[in-house]
C-alpha cells in the first residue's frame, strides 16, 4: 500500500470529523428518527422534543440524571438511549454514574426447547444402569461400613481407656470397641485385643489406636505407641495398620509397628508385609525391619527387632519364631533361582517362518528346592509347625505332593519352554515346545498328571503321521512326545509341521534376521522373551492389510509398513523387574513412526510439580515436518487440498508456516493438582517465537469469530501480573473461561485457570519440579541413558487425596485407602534412527493387586467377620 493511501484515508477521516451538520440536516435527521420511532403517534411534536436541547453530548449528559430517575418523557428517553448506543463517552458517563451497565450487551441466548426422545433415552439407560451396578459393587467392597463391633478386649494390665464422644471410660476384659472408638493405654498399661477378623493386637503402654472397617478391609489407626499384630489369614480383604506417616498392608503374618515422634518403624516377625511410605511401596520380609526416618543404629536387624518387641508378654515366642523364619529365609535365599539363559538350542530348530517366539524358564527345580527347604525346616521346628497348622488350610503333605508332580514333570524337560507361532495356509498355528531330557514323559503324563484323556491326546510320531487333519481344532489339544522334544498344540496340522521341522534339524531360523534378534535377546540374559515378526504377520494377514485399498494406503503413508520386529524382554534382578521393548523398523523411521525424536532433555517436565498424578511428555521432530506428514496422509487428492487452502484462506493463516513453524518439539500434558471443581490439567508446549505465535492465535481467533453466528464467539483478554503477561480465552456465548495461557522460558503453558499457570511458573523458577524429585528419579529405569524421548508417569495418590475434602467422612476414608494403595509408575521411551525402545522398572499401573484381588473375591464369604454381627 502506498504512503499516499494512508494520507488519503487520514484526510478523509479528518474531513468527516470536521464536517459539522447544519441546522437543516439536524432537523431532517430528527424527523427521520422521530418517524422511525413513531413519535408522532405518541403525541409529541418535533418542537416538543426539545431538539435544540439535545444537540450534543453535553445536553445528553445533563439529562442523564433525569433519564436515570425515569422522569423524562418517553420520547426523550428513547433519544437518550439511541445516543448512548452511538456515543462511547456518554455511555461511559452513564455507566460510571450508575455503577452498573446501562445496557445488556451480552449475546442473547437462544431458548432450547426440550425434545422428548424415548429412543435416545433407551440407549442412555443401559450404560447408566451398568454404571450404577458398578458403583454399588465398588461401594460394597470399599466404602460400606459393616455393622457390629470392631474389637474385643481379651486381657488388660494397668490402665486402659476407651475414648469416645461420650467421654473416657476405663476398659475391662470382655469390653468391646466400636467403629472409630479410640483405645488409650496409660503408663505401664498393656492390652491384648481380638479383632473382628480373628487377628490379635498386643498394645504397649502409652499407645492410642482405633479400629475401623470398610468393605472387606480393616484398618488399625495407630496414632502413637507400639503394637504387635498377629494377622489372621483372610479369604478377602486386607488388614492395614496406618500410622501418621506410613501404612502397612498384610494378610496372615506377625509384625510390630512403633509410631513415635521421629516417625514409624515396622519389624516383621513372620511372613512379609508391604509398607507404603512417601508414595513408595516396599516389601519387608521376616527378620527385617524398616523405619520412615533415617536411623544410625548399626546393630544387626535381629537385635534391633528383639529390642523393638522386648515389651511384649509373648516376646519369647516371637523371638523363637523370628529365629526360625530368619533361618528359613536365609536358606531360601541360597536356592539358586533360574539362571538367565544366554543361548537356546530350541531356537535354531524352530521353523524358518516362525512369526512369534516366546521363551519362559523351567521353574520346576526352583519350586522343588524351595519346597524341600520349607518342609525340612517345618520338620525341625515345632514353632513353625504350630504356625503352619494355625494359619493354613492346606495340608503340608498336599503341598508337597503338588510341588513334587510339577517338579517331576519339569525333570523330563529342559531349562526352557518355548511358545511359537508359525505361518500356515489360513490362520497361524501355535505350539509349545520343550526339550525332553529323559524318556518316560508320555507315561508320566498318562499316569501321574491330573489331566483326563478327553482334554489332552497323547501322540507319538507314528500316530501323528497317521492322524488326519480335522476340520476344526480340538478342545484341549494334543501332546506329541518325541524322543528329544515334547510339543503341545491344539492343531494337528501345526504338530505335523513342527514334527517335520524337528526331524529336519536346523531350520536356519536362528541365522535369519528375525532369529538373530532373538539370539541377541538371549545374549543379554533371558528371563522371559517375546519376539514377533510384525512385518511378516501383517503380510500374512491379508484381511488386515488388503481389506480396503484405502486402509492399505493409510498404513503405507503412515510409515508403519516399515515396522519389522517387536522384541520384548522381562527379567527380575533381586525382585526388581526390568522390562524392555524394542520396536524395530526396516530402515530409517518415516512419517508417524518417525515423530518421536531422539533422546534429549525434556524441559517441559520442569513446569510439573512432584505431586502430579499423570504426566505424558514427549519430544517430537520438527512440527513443520509433522504438519507435512499429516497433510500428505490426510489430503491424498487435489480436491481435499483445495478445501484446505480455502479453509486457510478463510482463517487467514497457514497451518504449517504460521502455526507449526512457531512450535518447538517438546510437548507435555499432565493432571497436576486438584480434580475438583475443575480437573487441573496442564499443557506445556515448546515455542520458537512466542510473539509470532501470539499474533497467529489472535488472527485465528478473529477469523473464527467472523465466520458466522452459529459458532461460539471466543474473546481473548490479556493482563499483566507481576510482570508476567497472562492471556485468557472467554467463550462469550456460554460466558465461561475456556483456558488461560502464558509464555515463559520458551514454553507456552496452558491451563484452565491462572492459579495453575502461576504454580507452574513457580515450580519452573524454584526448581522443585517432578523431574528433579527423588521419587520420580527412583522410578526411572536403571540404564546407561541420561535422556529420554518420552516419559509417561502416573501416581494416583495425589489425585484421590484432595477428593477427601469434597466427600463425607465415610467416603473420604475409602478414597484415602484407594489413594494409599497406588504406586508411581514410570515408562520411558527412546526414539532411535531405526527403532523405538521402551523400558520400565515399575510394576504395571502401580495398583496394589492384593486390593484389586479383594474386589475379585468379593463373593467370598466373610467367614472371619463373625464378630461384626
Amino acid at each position: 500500500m502506498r504512503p499516499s493511501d494512508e494520507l488519503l484515508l487520514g484526510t478523509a477521516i479528518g474531513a468527516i470529523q470536521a464536517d459539522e451538520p447544519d441546522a437543516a440536516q439536524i432537523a431532517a435527521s430528527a424527523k427521520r428518527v422521530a418517524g422511525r420511532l413513531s413519535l408522532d403517534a405518541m403525541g409529541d411534536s418535533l418542537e416538543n422534543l426539545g431538539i435544540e436541547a439535545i444537540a450534543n453530548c453535553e445536553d445528553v449528559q445533563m439529562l442523564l440524571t433525569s433519564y436515570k430517575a425515569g422522569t423524562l418523557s418517553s420520547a426523550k428517553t428513547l433519544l437518550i438511549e439511541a445516543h448512548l448506543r452511538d456515543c462511547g463517552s456518554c455511555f461511559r458517563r452513564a455507566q460510571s454514574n450508575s455503577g452498573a451497565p446501562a445496557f445488556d450487551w451480552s449475546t442473547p441466548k437462544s431458548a432450547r426447547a426440550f425434545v422428548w426422545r424415548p429412543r435416545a433415552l433407551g440407549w442412555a439407560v443401559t450404560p447408566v444402569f451398568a454404571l450404577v451396578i458398578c458403583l454399588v459393587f465398588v461401594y460394597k467392597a470399599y466404602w460400606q461400613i459393616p455393622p457390629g463391633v470392631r474389637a474385643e478386649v481379651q486381657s488388660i494390665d494397668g490402665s486402659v481407656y476407651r475414648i469416645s464422644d461420650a467421654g473416657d471410660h476405663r476398659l475391662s476384659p470382655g469390653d468391646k470397641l466400636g467403629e472409630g472408638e479410640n483405645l488409650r493405654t496409660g503408663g505401664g498399661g498393656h492390652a491384648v485385643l481380638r479383632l473382628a477378623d480373628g487377628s490379635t493386637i498386643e498394645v504397649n503402654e502409652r499407645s492410642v489406636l482405633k479400629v475401623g472397617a470398610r468393605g472387606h478391609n480393616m484398618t488399625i489407626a495407630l496414632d502413637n505407641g507400639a503394637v504387635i499384630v498377629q494377622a489372621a489369614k483372610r479369604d478377602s480383604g486386607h488388614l492395614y495398620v496406618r500410622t501418621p506417616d506410613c501404612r502397612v498392608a498384610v494378610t496372615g503374618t506377625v509384625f510390630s509397628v512403633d509410631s513415635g515422634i521421629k516417625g514409624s518403624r515396622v519389624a516383621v516377625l513372620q511372613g512379609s508385609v508391604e509398607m507404603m511410605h512417601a508414595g513408595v511401596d516396599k516389601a519387608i520380609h521376616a527378620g527385617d525391619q524398616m523405619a520412615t526416618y533415617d536411623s544410625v543404629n548399626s546393630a544387626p536387624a535381629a537385635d534391633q527387632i528383639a529390642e523393638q518387641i522386648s515389651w511384649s508378654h509373648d516376646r519369647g515366642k516371637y523371638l523363637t519364631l523370628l529365629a526360625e523364619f530368619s533361618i528359613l529365609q536365609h536358606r531360601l535365599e541360597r536356592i539358586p533361582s533360574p539362571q538367565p539363559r544366554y543361548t537356546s538350542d530350541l531356537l535354531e530348530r524352530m521353523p524358518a517362518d516362525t512369526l512369534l517366539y516366546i521363551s519362559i524358564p523351567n521353574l520346576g527345580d526352583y519350586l522343588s528346592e524351595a519346597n524341600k527347604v520349607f518342609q525340612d525346616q517345618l520338620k525341625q521346628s515345632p514353632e513353625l509347625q504350630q504356625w503352619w497348622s494355625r494359619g493354613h488350610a492346606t495340608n503340608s503333605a498336599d503341598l508337597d505332593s503338588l510341588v513334587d508332580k510339577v517338579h517331576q514333570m519339569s525333570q523330563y524337560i529342559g531349562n526352557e519352554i518355548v511358545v511359537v507361532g508359525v505361518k500356515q495356509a489360513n490362520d497361524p498355528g501355535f505350539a509349545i515346545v520343550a526339550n525332553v531330557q529323559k524318556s518316560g514323559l508320555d507315561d508320566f503324563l498318562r499316569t501321574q498328571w491330573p489331566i483326563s484323556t478327553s482334554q489332552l491326546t497323547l501322540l507319538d510320531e507314528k500316530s501323528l503321521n497317521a492322524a488326519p487333519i480335522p476340520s476344526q481344532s480340538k478342545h484341549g489339544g494334543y501332546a506329541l512326545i518325541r524322543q528329544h522334544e515334547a510339543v503341545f498344540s491344539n492343531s494337528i496340522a501345526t504338530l505335523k509341521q513342527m514334527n517335520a521341522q524337528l526331524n529336519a534339524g536346523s531350520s536356519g531360523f536362528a541365522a535369519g534376521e528375525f532369529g538373530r534378534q532373538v539370539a541377541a535377546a538371549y545374549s543379554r540374559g533371558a528371563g522371559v522373551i517375546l519376539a514377533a515378526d510384525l512385518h511378516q504377520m501383517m503380510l500374512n494377514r491379508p484381511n488386515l492389510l488388503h481389506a480396503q485399498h484405502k486402509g492399505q494406503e493409510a498404513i503405507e503413508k503412515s510409515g508403519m509398513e516399515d515396522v519389522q520386529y517387536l522384541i520384548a524382554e522381562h527379567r527380575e534382578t533381586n525382585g526388581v523387574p526390568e522390562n524392555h521393548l524394542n520396536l524395530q523398523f526396516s530402515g530409517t523411521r518415516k512419517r508417524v513412526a518417525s515423530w518421536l525424536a531422539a533422546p534429549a532433555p525434556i524441559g517441559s517436565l520442569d513446569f510439573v510439580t512432584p505431586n502430579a498424578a499423570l504426566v505424558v511428555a514427549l519430544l517430537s521432530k520438527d512440527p513443520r515436518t509433522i504438519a507435512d506428514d499429516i497433510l500428505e496422509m490426510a489430503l491424498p487428492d487435489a480436491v481435499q487440498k483445495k478445501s484446505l487452502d480455502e479453509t486457510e484462506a478463510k482463517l487467514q493463516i497457514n497451518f504449517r508456516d504460521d502455526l507449526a513453524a512457531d512450535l518447538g518439539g517438546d510437548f507435555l500434558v499432565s493432571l497436576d493438582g486438584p480434580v475438583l471443581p475443575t480437573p487441573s490439567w496442564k499443557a506445556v508446549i515448546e515455542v520458537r517465537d512466542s510473539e509470532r505465535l501470539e499474533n497467529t492465535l489472535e488472527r485465528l481467533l478473529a477469523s473464527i469469530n467472523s465466520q458466522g453466528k452459529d459458532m461460539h464467539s471466543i474473546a481473548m483478554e490479556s493482563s499483566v501480573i507481576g510482570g508476567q503477561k497472562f492471556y485468557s480465552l472467554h467463550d462469550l456465548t456460554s460466558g465461561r473461561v475456556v483456558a488461560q495461557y502464558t509464555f515463559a522460558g520458551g514454553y507456552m503453558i496452558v491451563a484452565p485457570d491462572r492459579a495453575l499457570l502461576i504454580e507452574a511458573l513457580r515450580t519452573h523458577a524454584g526448581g522443585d519440579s517432578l523431574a528433579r524429585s527423588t521419587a520420580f528419579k527412583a522410578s526411572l529405569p536403571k540404564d546407561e541413558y541420561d535422556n529420554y524421548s518420552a516419559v509417561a508417569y502416573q501416581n494416583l495418590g495425589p489425585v484421590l487425596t484432595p477428593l477427601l475434602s469434597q466427600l463425607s467422612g465415610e467416603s473420604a476414608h475409602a478414597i484415602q485407602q484407594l489413594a494409599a494403595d497406588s504406586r508411581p509408575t514410570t515408562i520411558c521411551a527412546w526414539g532411535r534412527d531405526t527403532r523405538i525402545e521402551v523400558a520400565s522398572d515399575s510394576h504395571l499401573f502401580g495398583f496394589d493387586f492384593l486390593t484389586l484381588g479383594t474386589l475379585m473375591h468379593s463373593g467370598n464369604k466373610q467367614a472371619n467377620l463373625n464378630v461384626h454381627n
Partner: protein
Amino acid sequence: MSYAGKGSSPEADISNRELGNWLRLAISELPSRAAEMFTLRFLEELGNREIAALMGTSQAVVAVTLHHARSKLKKRLRELEQEKQ
C-alpha cells in the same frame, strides 16, 4: 487532486467534503461490524479497549478487524479517486 487540512481554503474544503463523502460510501460497503468498529475508533476516537467492551469482544479482535478495515478503505478511496480522474 490535492488534499489539505481543515479550513485551509474554500476549494480545499469542498475537496475534503468530497473526500469525506467517499469515505462514508466506502464505510457503508464494509461489513456492518467492521464499519461500526472503524467509526467508533476513528470518528468517535474511542480506544480499542473501550470498543472491545462496547461490542463484547477482545482487543485483539478489534485490532485485527480495524487493520483489515483500514486496508479495504484505503484501497476503495484510491479506486474512487481514480474513477474521478
